[in-house]
């Protein structure tokens, strides 16, 4: 399936893009992350939440053909 991935905050600096499309076979959100960690090893060091179709989901959720967002915590104020 085709997945549109959006990167927020400092994650976009690691991937050097704010969004991209990836092709992946069935699996869980963790499987997608494994794929992204191989592509961008620096991502492994960062804490972030994952949203699927505009909802924050746990990392062992089933992956759906959807829009995924990777959301790091912000602390600035």
């Amino acid at each position: 399936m085709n997945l549109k991935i959006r990167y927020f905050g400092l994650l976009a600096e690691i991937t050097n893009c704010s969004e991209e499309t990836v092709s992946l076979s069935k699996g869980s959100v963790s499987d997608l992350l494994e794929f992204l960690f191989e592509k961008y090893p620096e991502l492994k060091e960062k804490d972030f939440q994952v949203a699927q179709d505009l909802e924050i989901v746990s990392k062992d959720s089933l992956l759906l053909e959807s829009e995924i967002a990777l959301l790091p915590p912000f602390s600035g104020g």
Partner: protein
Amino acid sequence: MSRYSRHIVLDEIGQAGQDKISQAKVLMVGAGGLGCPALQYLTAAGIGTIGIIDFDIVEESNLQRQILFGTSSIGINKAIAAKNRLKDLNPTINSIAYPEKLTPKNALELFEDYDIIVDGTDNFSARYLINDASILTNKPVVYGAIYKFEGQVSVFNYQNGPSYRCLFATPPKEGSVPNCSEIGVLGVLPGIIGTMQANEVLKMILGFDNVLTGKLFCFNAMTSETITLKITKSISEIEKVMSLKELFSNQNFASFCESPVAEISIEEAFKLGNNQFIDVRELGEEPLVKFSNCIQIPLGKLEHELDQIDSEKNIILFCQTGIRSKTAVEILQKHNQHNCYSLIGGAETILAHQKLELK
């Protein structure tokens, strides 16, 4: 009163709504990039009592975005400088400046005096402190946070909604997220996000629908894109905070950013060897677990029974589900007992392991 006529004339607000605003008590934590615009609009709106807590001093580099201040404010404490400026904007309200840091020692008492807390802080320790104190005092928090050109807004602990820890359970590793002074920030961004926070405060006071509870509003000032993500409440994260109530004031500020507690499985524990197991459940809790290098010290008594701990051993703490045992590890770490771990799976996993061993 002609001051608020533009509110009163709106059907959705009226005199009744303006009265609610004048009876409200709002605490602004942080009078910086987010606090300045939020305070300006809340003061202008006529919030009856506004508390401002900030220990920081105004510097020239703040003036690019902290718009309550001016060149004449440089060197003055931000809470005091903000209060002085706001006095002229609206002398009819009551504003209280606390020129000090929010800490576990003062947070609970301070939060009790207010209806709504606004998070305008700039570091994770403060944000987790605000989360925990707001859960313990049952106050909603209007959250705002920024990074370079991006901002987030949400409302936590409102009408049974999620908390900050439901979104990000624990702070990120130290040093993994830089702050504004290191990476910079577009000045107008906190202006937008802080004003949105003031908007949420007013919506809550006026009882409007569509408060950003259970939702994280994300804004990108460079692209003008917005996206709103749904946040699910985590009951275990909220219960975990509530279970720490007794110990809350004894913590230090930095402990809100300490690295996560070390967890260990039963197999790893036995591989490690040289163990002392400590059951931190209440007496009589089942399933009963008894074996030679295991003692029972209920969590509430742990700090008073530290002499029972063999500091030469690897201390494996367990309970039912692994929540109390993590708290127990934190207590021991505070008393300089390292080599302590929280057992994943709790008492059940010990029994299961013992059954396997007997086969």
